[in-house]
């Protein structure tokens, strides 16, 4: 992108926001990996923002529920969303590509991390992506994709299908998309 000097002359720059951009925090994953991140990106996570505000950060913020691989992904997301000059459209495109490339296991790692760290935008994107994998799919397909084991007897299943007969017809054929 050929976008330089975006800060117009004379624009008021909030000194506090400027400080956040230059200040870095260190996040520590459950498996002991450390990542540095600008404070302005980190506080897009409400949970981290609260920790910083309560000053219980003390340099390194431990995140015992997020492993290193997942944290690295989350940080990529946060950095993009804190980027100066990234338009909403760019961010939207980034979000789409970001989640569409994730495998199922990764989606669940990220949804739990986003939930724990309270990153609303990311949480929304991943939930939507998971829902997309279920949309208009047969029960068998969803079970296979999400490794859900049915514990119904065939008779029980038949009975339930009768109850909501209108819900079973016309789903996509069981192909991976």
């Amino acid at each position: 992108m050929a976008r330089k000097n975006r800060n117009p002359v004379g624009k008021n720059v909030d000194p506090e926001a400027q400080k956040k951009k230059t200040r870095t925090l260190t996040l520590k994953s459950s498996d002991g990996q450390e990542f540095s991140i600008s404070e302005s990106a980190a506080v897009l996570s409400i949970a981290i923002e609260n920790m910083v505000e309560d000053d219980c950060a003390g340099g390194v913020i431990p995140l015992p529920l997020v492993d290193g691989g997942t944290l690295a992904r989350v940080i990529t997301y946060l950095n993009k969303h804190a980027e100066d000059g990234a338009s909403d459209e760019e961010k939207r495109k980034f979000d789409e590509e970001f989640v569409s490339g994730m495998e199922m296991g990764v989606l669940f790692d990220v949804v739990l991390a986003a939930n724990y760290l309270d990153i609303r935008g990311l949480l929304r994107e991943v939930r939507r992506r998971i829902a997309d994998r279920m949309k208009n799919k047969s029960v068998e397909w969803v079970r296979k994709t999400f490794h859900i084991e049915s514990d119904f007897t065939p008779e029980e299943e038949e009975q339930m299908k009768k109850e909501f007969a209108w819900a079973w017809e016309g789903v996509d054929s069981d192909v991976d998309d």
Partner: protein
Amino acid sequence: MDRTRIKSCVLNDRITNLPCDIIDNILKYLPLRDVVRTSILSRGWRYKWVTIPYLVFDENFQESLPEKCNIESIIYQILLVHKGPIIKFTLMVPDFEIYPAIDHWLHFLSNHHVEEFALWSSDMDQPMPYHLFNFDHLRHLYLIDGEIKLPPAFKGFSGLLRLELQNVYLAPWEFKKLISKCPSLEYMDLDDLDGDTRDLEIDAPNLKSFSFIGRFNSICFKNASHLVKMSIRTSYELEIPDEFETSQEFATFEPYESDRNMIEVLVKLSSLTFEPYESDRNMIEVLVKLSSLESDGGFLQFLATGGVPQKLLTNLNHLTILSLFHIGFESIVEVKCALCLIRSSPNLQRLKITSGTPRKERNVKTTRFLTAQQTCQIPLHRLKNVKIQRFSGAEPEMEFLKLLLLAATVLGKLEISCYHDVAREARYCMVRRLVSFRRASPEAEIIFQEP
């Protein structure tokens, strides 16, 4: 990295044990039919769906059903098994006879904390069931067709933030009563109101956004100190009748006597009041607090009642987005009015214009006017983005763009998309002329889209 752990997550059923609110929020993105189908996945999923707080019966839902299905009995069935609050209820199925079942459903829903309610009423002659007026938690109400008759004991919707009415029949006194009993209203979208409500008196102290399409005689804001976005369009029609050419003619229309879209007006905004016929103050002066303004050519004509000054006495200092739809560039009144708004908006950042259907006649006066304006400075030092659609390349349009390019010192993008009827050669000429115009902004990029 711990390979065994990752491998095991791939094969485990991880979705079933997600926290409830995550599952609810995943199901939220699924059509209702898919949601119901989850009940058969496993015992763990049997009753997950019955607490979903969003029930949406719309056209997509109807289309997803097998042919012989009766949507009415399905709605009964779902409401019967549903548990817990229903935050959102939508019933927007075309050609679906909702009476008399809707009475029962609304009675049921009135104890379920509905916050968002949308209904497409098929029968114009039926008033909305009175249970609707007992929804205490309503925040968003969207109605298409049907009639509103408020019960005498209507307490109001104290928490209603957003009201959208489309083609709803509403007597003038009912309209007034409804608005006055919704003190929290922030967004109001009135589209083609039926029922002779031509004089709109709006007393909504928290109103932020007002959008209106249709005919009116007057709009009176009694208390609108928070209004920042206003969109008023007088018709869906693309053509503005010739008779609207001058403001004098316009001002003499008699209310109710003519079939015109807009006639006379009384606009009051917070402390600024305007009495028609008594003062020569321009009506546009009332718009000072807006940050976004949308208008069509018809409403510009209306604003021009009483004449158009070069510039407003008070700047529209907060206005950053101006959208003008179906502007007749051959109409000097509309062009003058548009330019007056632009000139009075020193902080304008985005300008979007849709040209009216091009007509060849009588544009000499407008062209001459616009050419003359090019020597005056227009303070457009914040304007970054201009979008013009249905561009025909007529002289006044070209002169208008010339004017903008000369004045906009930080313009980043001018996007033009052409009216479909313009011939290929004419488009070529247009582009050649456009790129030769002087640009005050060295960064300005002109993007031309083929129709």
